[in-house]
Every structure is written in structure tokens, then in C-alpha cells.
């Protein structure tokens, strides 16, 4: 590839506040493959928290702000399956056909690509692993697994790393219990879910926990740290790939 391709990066508010390095890593990684990722400063939250709490009007206002923040017709690479799911699949519910902005919203939704999907399907990336042999588990957020259907993308990307053995913890496909306001409103149930998730992770021999969703990681990392059974802390796929695929200086 000789020409530089332009994309937008949608960082998500969780990454913005809690995992900013994942955003930097994504940009750096994309640069290695000749992709210029633009980060419009006008981006805020995708609107999901209000939407899932039963406040579609408030979510709609916020959605309009996002739509306005990405003017060029470039793909919008999203660093979270759940925010990507919101923008790709739920903006259509927020802007039904009779809504004045429905066409705009629809076009916006079509430009949404989840990060692992972008690397695997659009970029058809071939990764070279420069890292030491490790064991890792992939936590796919429920929306990446069931809504965006991008589970295979992250699995395939990890399988290209020849020194990374991917381990499946028990009940791997089960939700970590975050669910946005669910974790605040139904603390005991959410707590039981994330505890079980952590127990399953602790029962493996992994050194790395990788996810494409930092909201899940906020939940799981917090619980892992509270339980103090392992120093394990999850990281975004972008960060993991950047570490593994950078040639070591001799």
C-alpha cells in the first residue's frame, strides 16, 4: 500500500477517561499500516447510557452531536464493540424513517467499523509477533459477540500471533455483568456475575486478558484488583497488538 488511507477514530468515553493509552496504541498501530487515524475533538459519548436507561430523547441529542463530529466520508473505527453496536444498529431506532435526520444517521451508521473488524476485514492485516511466549484469554463483550458479530475478527487476529496461546476460561461466553447502569442499579447481581468471571480467569494460567471493550475491562479489572488473587489486569486489543507487533530494538 502506497497511499495513505484516512479513517476516523472514535475513542469512546470510557477509553477517554480510563484507558487513553488504548487510543494512542490504536493510532500508532494503524500508522504502521499506513492508515492515518483522525481523532475529532468534538466527539463525546455515543449516547448508549441514556438509551439503555430508557431516555431515547436525551440519547438522540447526544447522537446528533456525534454525527456532526465526523463530517468526512471516512470509515469510523470504534474502539469498543458496544459503542459500535450502538452507533451501527441502534441509531436507526433513535432516528426512525420519518425523522428529519434519519438519512444522515443511517449514512453515519454505515460508516461504523469496530476496531478488530477494521484490522481483520478491511485492512486484511498480517501480524508479526515479536513477543515472548504467553498465555492469554480474550474477553469478548456481549455486543461484540452477539450484536456486531466481530468475535471471529479478534480471535483470528490473536491466532496470527504465533507466540500467544489463547485459553478459554469457563463460561467464556457469559456476560461479565457490567451492562452500564445495570452494574450500579443491581449491584449484587452484577457483582456476582463479575466475581464468577474473575474466578474463571483466576483458574487459568494466563498472563494477559484482552478485550475489545474497555467498559467490560473497567468492571473486570476492578473486581480482579479487589479480589487480589492475581496481578492480572485486562487491556485493550489495540494495546496488546501494539506491544506484540513492534519489532524489538536489537
Amino acid at each position, binding site marked *: 500500500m502506497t497511499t495513505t488511507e484516512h479513517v476516523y477514530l472514535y*475513542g469512546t468515553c470510557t*477509553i*477517554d*477517561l*480510563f*484507558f*487513553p*493509552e488504548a*487510543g*494512542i496504541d490504536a*493510532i500508532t498501530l494503524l500508522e504502521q499500516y499506513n492508515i492515518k487515524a483522525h*481523532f475529532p*475533538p*468534538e466527539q*463525546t*459519548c455515543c449516547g448508549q447510557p*441514556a*438509551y*439503555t*436507561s*430508557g*431516555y*431515547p430523547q*436525551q*440519547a438522540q*441529542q*447526544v447522537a446528533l*452531536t456525534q454525527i456532526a*463530529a465526523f463530517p468526512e466520508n471516512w470509515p469510523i473505527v470504534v474502539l469498543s464493540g458496544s459503542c459500535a453496536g450502538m452507533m451501527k444498529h441502534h441509531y436507526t*431506532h433513535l432516528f426512525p424513517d420519518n425523522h428529519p435526520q434519519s438519512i444522515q444517521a443511517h449514512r453515519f451508521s454505515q460508516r461504523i467499523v469496530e476496531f478488530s473488524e477494521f484490522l481483520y476485514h478491511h485492512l486484511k492485516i498480517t501480524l508479526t509477533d515479536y513477543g515472548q511466549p504467553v498465555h492469554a484469554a480474550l474477553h469478548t463483550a*456481549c*455486543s461484540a*459477540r*452477539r*450484536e456486531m458479530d466481530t468475535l471471529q475478527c479478534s480471535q483470528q487476529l490473536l491466532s496470527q500471533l504465533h507466540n500467544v496461546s489463547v485459553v478459554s476460561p469457563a463460561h467464556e*461466553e*457469559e*456476560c461479565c*455483568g457490567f*451492562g452500564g*447502569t*445495570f*452494574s*450500579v*442499579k*443491581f*449491584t*449484587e*447481581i*452484577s*457483582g*456476582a*456475575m*463479575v*466475581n464468577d468471571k474473575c474466578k474463571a480467569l483466576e483458574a487459568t494460567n494466563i498472563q494477559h486478558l484482552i478485550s475489545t471493550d474497555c467498559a467490560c475491562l473497567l*468492571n473486570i479489572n*476492578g*473486581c480482579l*484488583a*479487589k479480589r487480589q488473587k492475581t496481578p492480572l489486569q485486562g487491556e485493550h486489543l489495540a494495546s496488546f497488538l501494539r506491544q506484540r507487533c513492534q519489532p524489538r530494538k536489537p
Partner: protein
Amino acid sequence: MPSSPFEMKASSVLQNEELQHSYRNAMDYLIKRRQQQFNDPLEWQTLRQKGTSIKTAALNDLPQLLLQLEAKLINNGIQVHWAETPDEANILITRLIKETTSSNPDLSPAPVVKGKTMVSEEIHLNQYLAQQGIPCLETDMGEFIVQLAKETPSHIIMPAIHKNKAEIAQLFKEHISGIYQDDVDILIQQARQYLRQCFENATVGISGVNFAVAETGTLVLVENEGNGRMSTTLPQTHIALMGIEKVIASLTDLPPLLSLLTRSATGQSITTYINMISGPRRKGEKDGPEKVHVILLDNGRSKLWQDASLRDTLRCIRCGACMNHCPVYSRVGGHSYGTTYPGPIGKILAPQLETQDNAADLPFASSLCGACGEVCPVNIPIPQLLLRWRQEATQQYQTNHCNHTTIPQQPTPITGLKYSRGQHLIWKTWSWINCHPKLYYFMTYLVTKWRILLPRQLGGWTLYRTPPRPASSTLHQRLKNK
């Protein structure tokens, strides 16, 4: 801290380690059984698509099909009754039972026998009949156990899934044998012998209906224990109770739906019994009831039907797969919900079918993980419908309290609202911040700058996790000058 009845009950189940363990094991078992049935993704998708379109078409044609069903049933000699509310259904059933028993004064009064029917739970039939002095005996093994324990089913397919062997043995000792023993095979034999006597004496049998075929006027009932067949053939009168959404157009619609139902529910290719009832005993026939009645119950279903998206709820064939796969159900168990139908399907039925105070709370008790929607054999978009009910709950608050003229009055009232002005304000403020990128930048900047000052305890969150720790600077800040 737990505030709603749902959370309070959930909390006690969560603290019961034994119950946690047995729920988890039972659900894992059912999940595995189902997976083995649907290990060919293409076959699953094709069949699911087929089942979905059959049910969708039947619902779109519901008024017509119901009339056709009624005509065919009558043609077959089956008496048809319509009930709009649980009360109407209960009164009707009582009348039909009394008609049968009073026409047989020489027969000693025996309990009514009942095969498994969730609709009868929905209308609280047993309690109603008891008030009328009519004993009604559950004959499905799980339902029988639940009845002995004076409880309600905790699962729509496995009603006694919350009971362990010792508890069942104790119940049988108290009510049947007088001796404690916990050999499962012997327990089953004891119950069977007990039930068999009751079947022989019963004059009225009540059952549910899994599918009602409009084209032929056939009532289809699936089961594994034979109690359904006994309840519908031995007594003089058979009363079948069904929700109006159970009607399907033709007999050819049946095989795909049966396959989806039994494979999703128990991981069986087919159930031991499939009863197809097309009328009372005819001349020259050796068995079968003399009279068959069907009660078609609405109880809120027609309201769901009127709404284009809520109508999807009525496709449900009650397989229970959504609860088996639900991370909330498998932890809090069926009774926490306080509704007839627990789990994901219960959450989207309850606001319309139930009068419980926490019905409005239930659609919020989900992480929206989507596991339910993924396995539903008739593709009901359960997560999307949960969202819809959340909106109903909050918008109803807004309509009632904020005099918001742009929001249409909702057709479907739900009870137990506790959405306050406070919540409403929070989301307004949140929206305002996120609609003003500069303000958003400033606020997130403040959070990172003052992160040391953030509280160490954050309600329930920090009971299970360390407090979330903001980074030293946001991604926005880091990329500002790039």
C-alpha cells in the same frame, strides 16, 4: 442496597450457595443438551427462520385464525369459551367443573387433575379453585412437588428446579409415604402410584395447549410423563386452557415448531408424548372424555398484539431457553421475579400480564447481554423489547410528571413505577454535557485533574470492585495538539 422486592429475593438466593450451585449445574446441563441438538448452525438458522415466519404469519392473521379455530373446534364437538381476564377464566372453569360434578351425584367428589399449564399459573387457578372448595391436583412431577411445598414454579419447563433431593424426600415423607427415603427412582414410583389413583377417580382434567391448529381444530400438547395424556383422556370432562397466541394456521406448521420447542427446551429431538386432541370420545371409541372445553384467554395479549413491536413477544413458544441461558436468571432463580413467567421472557411479559409492583423494575434487571435473544427459537428480539419497556417506564413518568406534550400517551400502562425527577434530571444534565464538546472536555479534564479526590467508596460498585481510577489525562487531552 436491595430496594425492590425483586432485589431482596435475588439477594437471598445469591447468598444461598447450595442453590447457586444447583441452578448453575441445572442450567449448564440444559445449555449443553440444547447445544448438542443445534450443532449445525445452518440447520438451526433455517429452522429458526421457518418457525419465526410461521408464528409471525399466524399472529398477523390472529383474529381470522381464532375465528377459524373456533369454528373447527365446534365442528369437532369441542366447546369453545372466551375469557378476557383471569377472573373470567377462573369463573368459567369453576362453572364447568361444577356442571360435571353435579351431573354425577353418585360419584364421590375427587380432586380435579391438572397437567402442566403455565396459563393456569398465570390466572392463579389453584388458589381460586381452593377458595371454591374444589381441590385441584398437579400431576406433572415438578408441579406436583411444587404444589406439595405450597410454592409456585421457578422455571416454566422445570417447575421444581430449585428443590434438591432431600427437600423432595422430606415432602414425600410428610405428604405421601410417612417414611423418609431419598432414592430418586423410589420417589418417582411413590408419586406415580399416588397420582394414578387420583387419575382413576377424577371426573375433570385440566390441561394447557402448546399449539392449536386452526385448519383442523386440533389441540396439541407435548409432555414427557404421560400425565398430560391421562389428564386429557381419563376424566369425563377435559378443560383445555390456552392463551390466544397459541393458534397456528395449519398442521404442516406443526413439525418445525415442535422440533424447535423440544430441542430448545430439554434438548430432546422429540418428547415422549405428543397429544393431538381433536374432539371428545366419539361413538364406538373406547376412551376419551365425554366433553372437551377450550378456554381462550386474552389477559393482556391483545394489547401486546396491537403494538407492532411488542407483538413479537407473542411468538413465544415457552421453551425456557432464554432463562436457561440468562446470567441473571441462573443466579437469582425463578422465584425472585415474583412473576408467573420468570427470566427474560417474563421481563417482557410481566409489564403487560402482571399486576406486581416490581413489573416496571424488571426490564431494568438485565445487562442486555443478548444471550436470550441469541437462543430464542422464534427470534424474539428480547433485548430490544427490554429497552422498549424501559422507555415505557421512564416516558410514563415523564408524561405523568413533566407534562411533556411531545411524548405520546403510552397505550400500555405498567405498574410499580419509581422513576423520580432526580433520575430525569441526571439524564438531562448528562445529555447537555455530551452535546457540548468543550464542556465535555472541561468536565473530563477536571475528573482527571482531581482524580485523587474521587471517593474511595462508590455504593455497591466498590463492594465487588476497586473504584474506577481515571487516567492522569484523557485521550482528548493527549491528542489535543496533534
